[in-house]
């Protein structure tokens, strides 16, 4: 045990004064910090939330004509957002903005994984591809990916998809 040094009255009051000043200073700093932090947090949240709003809202297309060049690519046909090829579902805009700022949406749509599998991909991108912490949005992103891009059990080898074949008559010499 350390022995306490005897402290004089003057020293005690000086210490008290100093403590009081420190307290006022740190409280002021704390308040300043909280206010500034709050402003920053609110503005960040506002901007991040605003950014993740489904805006511009894709157009739910009623037409299925072939003249696609004149149509807005930012539209939805048969539940698929045409420009990205992604399923148009809850949290679509969030996923689109989180993923396609760095890579093609094709890297989402061609893959299938469990929720844990998608989580591992996010971790891998954070570790090696400079993806930042997704915070509260990660759950929503995983909800979307799990719901729309989960694996289907296809067995050891799938049938040749004959319904997709573009049947043609073989030309022989």
């Amino acid at each position, binding site marked *: 045990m350390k022995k306490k040094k005897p402290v004089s009255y003057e020293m005690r009051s000086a210490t008290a004064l100093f403590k009081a000043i420190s307290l006022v200073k740190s409280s002021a700093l704390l308040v300043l910090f909280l206010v500034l932090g709050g402003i920053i947090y609110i503005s960040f949240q506002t901007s991040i939330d605003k950014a993740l709003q489904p805006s511009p809202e894709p157009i739910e297309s009623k037409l299925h004509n072939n003249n696609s060049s004149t149509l807005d690519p930012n539209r939805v046909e048969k539940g698929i957002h045409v*420009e990205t090829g992604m399923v148009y579902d809850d949290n679509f805009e969030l996923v689109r903005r989180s993923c396609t700022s760095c890579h093609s949406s094709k890297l989402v749509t061609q893959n299938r994984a469990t929720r844990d599998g998608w989580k591992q991909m996010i971790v891998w991108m954070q570790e090696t591809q*400079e993806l930042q912490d997704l915070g509260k949005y990660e759950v929503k992103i995983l909800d979307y990916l799990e719901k729309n891009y989960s694996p289907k059990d296809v067995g050891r080898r799938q049938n040749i998809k004959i319904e997709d074949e573009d049947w043609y008559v073989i030309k022989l010499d």
Partner: protein
Amino acid sequence: MKSIPSKKKPFGVNRRRFLRDTALSSMAVILGTDIVFGHNLPKGMSILGLEDISASLPGKDGRLSILNDRPINAETPPYLLDDKITPGELFFVRNNGVAPVDVDVNNWTLTIGGESAKKEMVFTLAELKSKFKHYTYQLTLECGGNGRKEFNPPAKGNQWGLGAVGCSEWTGVRLKDVLESVGLKSNAVYIGYYGADTHLSGNADKDAISRGVPIDKAMEDESLIAWAMNGEDIPVLNGHPLRLVFGGWPASCSGKWLSKIVIRNKVHDGVKMTGQAYRIPCDTVGPGEKVADEDMCIIESMPVKSLITFPKTGGVISLKDQLPIRGHAWAGDQIVSKVEYSIDFGATWKSCEMSKPVNRHAWQHFNATISFPKVGYYEVWAKATDDQEVSQPMILPGWNPKGYLNNACHRIAIKVNK
């Protein structure tokens, strides 16, 4: 390890970030909203919808299937691989990063260094071409993940179908001639490459990919530092102006936009050499099992495989006609000894005629003529066997976490009408 001067940050992070943020702000104004994670955007790249990234790929046939446009990855449908020597515009594209733009051929240099090099030397392209003897070989390059899309449970990454393979005629100098002119220390075990492609994140301190091969593979006669494909410049997306070519091994070993080779005293530890990339379980595992990094082994020679390149799948033929089929077969470091076909789902097999390879690692060609016994739906299956008596499986081979080495036999659908 980062030693390529051209990739060094020109202004330092803050200035770069400032410039990028300024650009992003103006992009945000155009979009009318902020771009979350926009700071991750590589330089000169914008988000979907602001540019037409689906336009056809430079130097490539529009019929290639684009799997991914950032980074660019595209495969060739099998019927377009019918040529004995794959034309440049039909050669698949597998990029991990962003290809360099405005390549200055006259000032392009290749540095040879590393801890097991006796000295460091820099060669210009002209010096490489004038100092060393030129060689031309037909060499088969196949992506280690070709066929990934069939794996179940699925593996992450580009979902390659059948066409991440090609065999072109490559011209260059032997890697061993160049390495020997620099001098190898006796402790050399591996070489690694660095290229001028950039990381997808735009971070100049990161390599997109930096792989390599053991020294024995590097010293083979057919291991080239190549500047030409089929007598012309290598297509931009396939590594112009200079690349490595190691036939029969995962194509990722054959570094593109080659700027540096390091001679290593240990297994090269560049990007995508470690962890699970281009590795399979050292011991086989069941479908979906998790495998620790230390239990994964680097893929070397690719397995035996074949493709039917004529006819295109989905063909209809009359019962009175015979169907000619043809295609190619290859087997990594081995030679293909036979190719057979089946029209009864593998119950019986008939032999194809086949050619010998024009040189090591060149794919071989097969053909046969089929008579169908009656009308109906058929699948023509092709199965190659290598000189070690190893054949292609008819269902998927051993599952592995990253979906490599699917060499299951190729199947095409045919209808025979009256």
